[in-house]
């Protein structure tokens, strides 16, 4: 179990943080709990609200506590950072890299945190997704902890052996993935369950920030239909991406990132999922980079202030008043 506390947070952000921790626990490999104590494993610091945050960081680092900055600043920083506003996906990825840091630091005391990599670099490459897409592989087995899930992609179905759910196994940082061309090779025992969101979920969880082979990254991506509700239920940030990519002119990866604040790796995972589900048009491979697409939709300001939409989202994330 890992404990977490915060410094300099507004009471609203603190509330959001606490409820997010409860929500995302299934997607992190360790169990995280919020603590008001002084000796937590990890402290998140709102550097926009604290003047003396450098001193706070030095103090925490001298105690070997992991310090994470929470800020609306988007310039590069060597610190672990959570971008404002708080989003579940960002929190999950920061937690997973913190888990990796702590594990690595325990394994090798001589490592300084600068040399520790986020866990993403050890994850399976999108080769697996490309193999699935191109039909060389049709069946997957994915394990995390004591759970193994088998996936039959042509059949859009899966079965799990163990206590974890499929999204939890896919989101676990210590999962292992293997493919097989024959369904008979899967040591399944349970009943197959249909799962329409399967391809989307594989994209969002197995992409490791790389587009599937053959997808041109430059130009406009246009979504034809939204994913099944399980996808935004598991990853609320996908709603912004859906809306951006369903514009008449579509959106480029850069536009989607700049306007939604969603991390590039998550945008790429979403695009891969949509591509596997045949729900998206990708830029033509032959076109030169950045086809001119300056449409009105790209430049027109929303008719209501952005702040309102954020406030409605915040309200919906809280259960009751």
């Amino acid at each position: 179990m890992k404990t977490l506390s915060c410094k300099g947070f507004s009471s609203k952000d603190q509330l959001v943080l606490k409820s997010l921790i409860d929500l995302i626990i299934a997607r992190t490999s360790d169990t995280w709990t919020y603590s008001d104590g002084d000796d937590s494993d990890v402290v998140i610091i709102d550097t926009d609200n604290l003047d003396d945050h450098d001193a706070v960081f030095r103090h925490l680092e001298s105690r070997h506590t992991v310090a994470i900055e929470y800020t609306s600043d988007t310039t590069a920083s060597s610190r672990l950072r959570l971008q404002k506003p708080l989003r579940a996906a960002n929190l999950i990825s920061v937690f997973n890299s913190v888990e990796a840091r702590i594990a690595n630091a325990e394994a090798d005391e001589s490592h300084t945190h600068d040399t520790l990599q986020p866990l993403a670099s050890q994850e399976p490459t999108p080769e697996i997704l490309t193999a699935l897409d191109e039909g060389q592989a049709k069946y997957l087995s994915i394990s995390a902890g004591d759970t193994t899930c088998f996936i039959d992609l042509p059949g859009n179905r899966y079965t799990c052996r163990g206590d974890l759910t499929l999204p939890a196994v896919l989101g676990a940082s210590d999962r292992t993935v293997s493919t097989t061309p024959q369904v008979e090779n899967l040591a399944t025992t349970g009943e197959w369950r249909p799962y329409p969101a399967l391809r989307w979920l594989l994209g969002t969880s197995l992409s490791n920030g790389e587009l599937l082979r053959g997808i041109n990254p430059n130009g406009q991506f246009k979504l034809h239909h939204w994913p099944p509700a399980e996808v935004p239920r598991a990853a609320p940030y996908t709603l912004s991406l859906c809306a951006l990519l369903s514009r008449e002119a579509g959106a480029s990866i850069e536009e989607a990132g700049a306007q939604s604040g969603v991390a590039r790796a998550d945008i790429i995972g979403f695009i891969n999922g949509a591509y596997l589900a045949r729900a998206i048009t990708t830029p033509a491979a032959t076109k030169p980079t950045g086809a001119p697409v300056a449409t009105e939709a790209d430049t027109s300001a929303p008719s209501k202030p952005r702040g309102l939409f954020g406030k409605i989202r915040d309200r919906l994330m809280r259960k009751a008043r």
Partner: protein
Amino acid sequence: MSEIKLIITGPPGAGKTTAIAAISETAPVKTDTHTTDDLAAVKEQTTVAMDFGELTLDDGQKVFLYGTPGQRRFEFMWKILVEGGLGLIILVDCSRPDPLADLHMYLDNFADFIRQTSVVVGLTRTDHPDAPAVAEFYSSIESSGRVLPILEVDIREREDVALLINALVSTLEFSR
């Protein structure tokens, strides 16, 4: 501060009253009465004027949720209720005889409002044996050229009502 209002519409029994009851922080104001005509065979209560619920944002601003009456004989109420609204949620009951036609009826009726704002479609009772697949709904609106969110939901669950509102807010923020 201007009034923020979201409108939920759809055929009788689609779950408008249920949705507002699931998410509103105040006891929803209902105008249900006992059904009298053909509907009585299917449903005990129906909404005659509107449903009303509310959410309070962190800064005290209120978001009002209005549910329209489902039956077509109350069509005159629809135009009145959407006046000044931020966006529309259409609920489609997939256990009815022709859910695709139902969707198109509401898309047509609210076309002006949708053009000015945004719309999200929630499919309810999708476990019905004759329920069309989500893909059929998408194909049926393809010719309009517009990509609408169409989400299967259990409208009795607060989380699913929140998902529809979130999707609507995302399209308002990013799709236009």
